[in-house]
């Protein structure tokens, strides 16, 4: 089964769970006065769940036939069948780095976490000229922080939590 059918299967399952939540669990919490309304908070989700299952089944069963396009796989186009050729390790490491950044942003402060993120990101991609990357990251971080915090007035905690800001 092709990847798109697997996704359709997951989608149909998801819609069933969503529909179950909409049909059987949401209405119990509804206060009596709202039950007199013609439209309930669960009405729209119910419609969506049913529509989602129908459309998902159409994709899953392949009812709508696609035109046979046997175009040559382009070197720059992305194709999951060639996943083994790709630099999947780098991509996963970058995703991990993003998660780490999300978790560290508050405790470590904007300046430290962002410059670390930028340097580590380029290091993962194979950059070894740290004498260029570190100043670039530091200047960019400082500039963005100044722009966002001082010019636009959106608060970004610059330093780690123990430094009291």
């Amino acid at each position, binding site marked *: 089964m092709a990847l798109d059918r697997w996704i359709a299967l997951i989608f149909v399952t998801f819609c069933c769970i969503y529909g179950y939540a909409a049909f059987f669990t949401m209405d119990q919490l509804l206060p009596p006065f709202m039950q007199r*309304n013609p*439209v309930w*908070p669960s009405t729209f989700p119910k419609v969506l769940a049913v529509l989602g299952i129908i459309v998902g089944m159409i994709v899953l069963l392949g009812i709508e036939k696609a035109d046979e396009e046997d175009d040559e796989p382009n070197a720059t186009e992305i194709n999951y069948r060639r996943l083994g050729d790709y630099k999947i390790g780098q991509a996963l490491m970058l995703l991990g780095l993003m998660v780490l950044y999300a978790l560290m*942003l508050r405790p470590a402060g904007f300046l430290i976490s962002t410059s670390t993120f930028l340097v580590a990101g380029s290091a993962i*991609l194979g950059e070894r000229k740290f004498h260029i990357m570190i100043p670039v990251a530091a200047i960019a971080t400082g500039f963005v922080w100044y722009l966002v915090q001082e010019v636009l007035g959106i608060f970004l905690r610059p330093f780690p939590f123990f430094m009291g800001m």
Partner: protein
Amino acid sequence: MLEGIFIGLEAAFSVQNILMVVAGCLIGTFIGMLPGLGPMSIIAIMIPVAITLGDPAAALILLAGVYYGAIFGGSTSSILLNAPGVAGTVATSFDGYPMARKGQAGKALTIAAVASFAGGTIGAILLMIFAPALSSVALLFHSAEYFALMVVGLSAIAAFAGTGQVAKALMMTILGLILATVGEGALFNMPRFTMGMMDLQSGISFITLAMAMFALPEAMFLVLNPARGASGEGSGKITNLRFSRAEGKAMLPVIGRQSIQGFFIGVLPGAGATIASFLGYAVERNIAKGDEQAEFGKGSVKGLAAPETANNAACTGSFVPLLTLGIPGSGTTAILLGALIALNVTPGPRLMIDTPEIFWAVIISMFIGNLVLLILNLPLIPYIAKILSIPRNYLIPFILFFTLMGAYIGQNNATELLLLVGLGVMATIFRFADYPLAPLLIGFILGTMLEDNFARSMQLYRGLDFIIARPMTLGLLVLAGLLVLLPSYRSRRARKRAEGVADGD
């Protein structure tokens, strides 16, 4: 009217006001480039500055400059990085980004600038002519019609999907609508599908989803397949900034049509630039012929010009209900309304009579804003486009950083970043499986409005009667059904015909 124009010119043309508009355009362009800060937030940020000016005309001129600058800045990040920061520029990235990847970033930016200028200017002319009359038409649209109009908008995605892709596109739309139901709705004061998490109470933010759907998968693909970034960039040289005479000729009718269509969609409160740009793209794609239609989504000049023109014209159109009825049609005009009231000007039916100089100063400032933007930005384009020639080891971490920042600034919530990564991985898998992602985002954007209007009309008519009771609603819904079914009917007929020919041989 002529008298009014002179009043406006007199108010708008002073050294101070010209400086204001130049400053506004520059600020708007540069901040607008940061994904996550759309025109709405930038105008909100600039309001304190505008109010301290004290003079309503000067304040409005500054804000108009910021507004147009921000829209253009938003298109820049859509075209160069596939990171649309504003809903209205999502459609711009469909053809703008492929063009930039082909090494025509400079040309794409020039087209965007020219199309925006044309859309904005024609929109302003239409505003001058139609503002008084249109205010009564906008009032004819009730929630039932809005509901139907949005269903039409969602069905128009059938136009985005190629043959055999309609079901997939619809699936993505429904997923987008489902994601929009997360959080607390406006009509019901109860959280839905939050799974008990406080951070989901306010729903998933649009910026987070937009970044996750477009920017993150693109950055991931650049990492996965280095050949992708290297191709066609022409070693970072931005050779041709101009579009050819033939391309200009192809764009001209598109600009003409989309300025008018975009403007009238913009007049409807709540519809605004987003719907205008998507519909504009869909319409142009459907009426283009053969080769030109196949070119859409792969870097078509028309496909870039259409949404750019339409969204600027619609932004201008959204001033009609604001200035004539005092009803803000979009988030941005709502903020402008706030600024006007703070400056002791009350927009509404009496604005044109009581303070004509304000009304006309706004219109004239639109012309000046557009013109200054064009003059300022055309020389800057080569430098802006240079962003693409930054080595990939530096560029990718920065794209990822700006994606994260965009999601963070809006909400100031670190959970949003985890959500972004999760949705981004999902989007990357969808891309691998050849699912279109634009419908998901459109579904998400329209989802809340769709449900609100649906619920409101259900309450007004105590059931589904509004479909029959309001002929315009019925008509729009029938049109939506046709839009969904037509592509698959057409491809089926084409296949039948092809088979018939094969049998005949």
